[in-house]
């Protein structure tokens, strides 16, 4: 349920951007979420959609891109892509993967209107 506070944080950031960049409404928003971010995409999307009415995000379209996680194998030193913390190294089969990336949650860009 942390997706709810994350959605609230996203809306706050958009409202701040609206003030700074002087736009009135957002028609599209693109998010990027790492596979290891611990964020349930559907829950975040649901929370955002539920909170949009009454804000400059009302009626806006949401696109969420999932970014693969990355890890380094402490056994064979391979750099690999992973979907979760539960996977063995695809190169050597050991469970010795140390995550190196894929925990980001970012607002990439917006399409906005000034009226």
């Amino acid at each position: 349920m942390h997706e709810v506070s994350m959605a609230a944080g996203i809306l706050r950031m958009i409202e701040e951007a609206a003030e700074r960049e002087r736009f009135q409404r957002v028609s599209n928003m693109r998010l990027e979420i790492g596979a290891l971010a611990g964020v349930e995409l559907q829950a975040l999307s649901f929370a955002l959609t539920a909170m949009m009415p009454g804000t400059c995000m009302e009626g806006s379209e949401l696109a969420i891109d999932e970014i693969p996680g990355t890890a380094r194998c402490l056994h064979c030193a391979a750099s690999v892509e992973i979907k979760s913390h539960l996977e063995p190294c695809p190169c050597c089969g050991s469970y010795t993967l140390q995550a190196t990336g894929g925990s980001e949650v970012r607002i990439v860009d917006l399409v906005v209107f000034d009226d």
Partner: protein
Amino acid sequence: MCVICGCHAGSNPESTPDSNADSNSQRTDARKTRSGASPIPAETGGGDLPYGVGGARLSVPGISQARAIHMEADVLGKNKRLASRNRAHFAAHGVSAFNLVSSPGSGKTTLLCASINALKIRRPGLSVAVIEGDQQTSVDAERIRATGAPAIQVNTGRGCHLDAQMVGDAFARLDLHARAHHGHGGDALLFIENVGNLVCPALWDLGEAAKVVVLSVTEGEDKPLKYPDMFAAATLMMINKIDLLPYVSFDVSRCIGYARQVNPGIEVLLVSATTGDGIERWLDWLLPQHGDLDRRPAAEPVGHGTAAQRIMASTVVTP
């Protein structure tokens, strides 16, 4: 080329009139790529009126234009900034902070009470304080205060985790904080007992030196696989209530194997907060070299081979 009259003005996107304004602006994390042009465009430095730089590349009275804004903004950025500020604040006050996370009922508060009592004997002058996170009630803070240690209760209401702002606000109310400002500084320990939840607190950095995940033997050994994000984020796993091992079917080595499958570098301690087994080892972990966390030896490197061999090879401390 202009679609209205065919001239070449404004046809080169590189010459977007407000591109210079961008580089000079004080915006922190948003960059405007095209200026809005409706109804009257923002005047540029040279007095030009950039009507044709919106998404449609032309302006039609009565029809608004879309423009794209590149945000490239970290959603957790604000929390990360506040956590870094907490971390610097703790360091400046000689405070080592530990973020205790677990599911509800793993025994975090009992473990903290036992730790505070044991610390009074081991390091009588050491300042210890607790920030308690729960959705409701101050029951846990009262249990901590009964040991003589100061505690601040943070009620998150419907919130499922503590965030860096809450911890920063709570820290400012603690004696630990005032003490350092009055020149009575020295090493101190701050325990942050997070809301009982094995999911959400994994994402929120509070400025702690390490996350410590507590797992009790009554919960089942497969928790690390069911809630991998938390075990991946933790530096230490404490297996609590080991006095109950004879009565439950909890396979300790399998549990450690699962935890290392998710996080090969995780350290492990076995404790019983009620009998005191393993508490001294926990204090060794907390207080290496006179409490200076930077001098604490890192987790042993992970050996090659099977999970079972790795468990044998690395730091599992039994009471």
